């Protein structure tokens, strides 16, 4: 870097190191030394709630008359819901222990771990209390509020069937997502780019955008050949309108100077659309996808409850008919995990695509 030496001091690469800009990790030695005893206690309290929950399950007498059946797994293994529950809690304890060990070497992670300790401790206590009230004493109204162990029963009873419902929901979502995002981004580009399209389509989009997708259900069920395609249609329009209007906004808000720069560099219309307007609209497109996903989860469960031969919504509905509320809870539990995973995945793609925004906007 010979020609760098002619620069003023504040412009030298040493002064602003590109690597240090991406993520500033304070030096490990620079932080005050954490006491081992304190950290061990922190870790202990993190898992203590769950240990208490196991203790409640194993030691608290089963006062109420609850029938707990064993399930045969394979040839020799026979476990009941309490075994599975303890197994699950042990898994959680192991996971948190691993996190504790993993976080120890990094000051940031250590802080995060410390901050989360009280909440994790409380989860365990709540599980214990719930078990006492729900299963051990049967003080909660039954069958509406089964204990935590009972909620795991469907996973012993019919794991394959549950997996089938999960896959059905995922399939519906995926089709709707792909069609919706594609249609949404395409319409958004057209509306954002061509004033004529904006004039004619935008009002329609605005009005139809506020209508909940499920309101179209009667039409969808009559007009589409199968319930599956009808559901895809409803999920698609959920994504479509939201993403389209946000994409259009993103494209319209592109600063004029970016277009002028591109033109003076020799760019023609395709470059202006695909290399200037769309990259500029990307953050808005992802905002649209996030908002649309919220609507989509609602719509997905609604359509499954009202007219699908499968899916988690269907599973809830079918279980409700038999008053099997523990299955309803199980389905809700799965949804919570499944939908968060989907949001996480979208968030991951977003953070990669919008890498250029890191440090530019408040996250």
């Amino acid at each position, binding site marked *: 870097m010979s020609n760098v030496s002619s620069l003023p001091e504040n412009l030298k690469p040493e002064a602003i190191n590109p690597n240090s800009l991406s993520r500033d990790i304070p030096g490990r030695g620079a932080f005050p030394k954490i006491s081992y005893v304190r950290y061990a206690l922190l870790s202990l309290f993190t898992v203590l709630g769950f240990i208490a929950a196991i203790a409640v399950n194993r030691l608290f007498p089963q006062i109420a008359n609850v029938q707990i059946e064993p399930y045969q797994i394979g040839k020799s293994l026979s476990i009941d819901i309490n075994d599975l529950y303890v197994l699950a809690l042990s898994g959680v304890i192991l996971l948190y222990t691993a996190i504790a060990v993993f976080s120890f070497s990094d000051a940031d992670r250590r802080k995060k771990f410390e901050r989360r300790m009280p909440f994790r401790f409380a989860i365990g206590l709540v599980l214990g209390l719930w078990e006492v009230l729900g299963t051990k004493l049967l003080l909660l109204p039954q069958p509406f509020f089964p204990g935590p162990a009972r909620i795991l029963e469907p996973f012993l009873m019919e794991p394959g069937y549950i997996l089938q419902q999960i896959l059905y929901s995922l399939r519906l979502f995926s089709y709707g997502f792909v069609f919706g995002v594609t249609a949404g981004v395409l319409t958004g580009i057209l509306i954002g780019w061509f004033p004529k399209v904006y004039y004619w389509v935008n009002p329609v989009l605005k009005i139809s955008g506020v209508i909940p997708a499920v309101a179209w259900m009667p039409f969808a069920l009559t007009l589409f050949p199968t319930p599956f395609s009808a559901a895809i249609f409803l999920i698609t329009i959920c994504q479509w309108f939201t993403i389209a209007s946000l994409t259009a906004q993103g494209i319209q808000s592109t600063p004029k100077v970016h277009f002028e720069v591109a033109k003076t560099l*020799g760019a023609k219309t395709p470059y202006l659309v695909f290399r200037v307007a769309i990259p500029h609209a990307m953050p808005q497109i992802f905002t649209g996808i996030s908002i649309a996903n919220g609507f989509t989860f609602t719509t997905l469960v609604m359509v499954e409850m009202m007219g699908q031969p499968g899916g988690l919504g269907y599973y809830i509905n079918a279980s409700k008919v038999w008053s099997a509320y523990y299955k309803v809870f199980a389905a809700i539990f799965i949804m919570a995990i499944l939908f968060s995973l989907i949001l996480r995945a979208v968030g991951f793609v977003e953070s990669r695509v919008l890498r250029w925004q890191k440090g530019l906007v408040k996250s």
Partner: protein
Amino acid sequence: MSEQVLHDTDSVVLKINAVSRTYIDDEDKTVEALRDISLSVRRGEFLSVIGSSGCGKTTLLRLIAGLDVPESGELILNGEKIKDPAPQRGYVFQQGSLFPWLTVEKNIASGLKARGVYKDNKAEVARYVELIGLKGFEKSFPHQISGGMAQRVAIARALINNPAVLLLDEPMGALDSFTRADIQDKLLELWKTNKTTMLLVTHDVDEAIYLSDRIVIMTPRPGEIKEIIEVKLPHPRHRGGTEFLSIRRDILEKLHLASAAPQPEYAI
């Protein structure tokens, strides 16, 4: 450059013939941004246009770039009438013109990509990164580098297309004086190596004298050329030199900035 070269038509890269441009301002008043401007820009020279804000100097630059059209008159670059923006007239904007979603490297490459000639000229990008002294910052995004670095990238992005004339619209206007001096030197260096004709719009008198072969002084409302001053000092120029200061005084007087009491006809 001698007087003879001035009259040689081959040495004129850009010819501006009696160009006028008016626009309507926010209060529905007609403003004469440019009136009857005629100017010949010589091949390879560094020409500055100086004047107070509102004298139409940016309008003139936008007309040359093809981002705006004149009401009357015509602009001719290398014998061809200017109608649209084109890469042979590179343009460097005041600030914030880098694409924020592209890295330094890709911003520079966007000049080639916009023309669809990136594949054959990949090596040029690395050469320009080196030329503007931003090695090690190729993968940085615009918000991660300083304003001065960003303007150097903007200059490289326009120069990589080998323009016949590089239009600079107050590119150092928003920078602190240290960074500004640094970019001025960088610009001179690029001018000497690339032999590109430079057309700089500025309101900084020192900057104009430091860089230019000729300085066009403009007066506002209507925007007209008042005088063209030749600067015949050798490079590198000394900002505190006697000749430098005398040219400076001369220009300031012509801009009616030197006298403490403003002349009545220019008091607004």
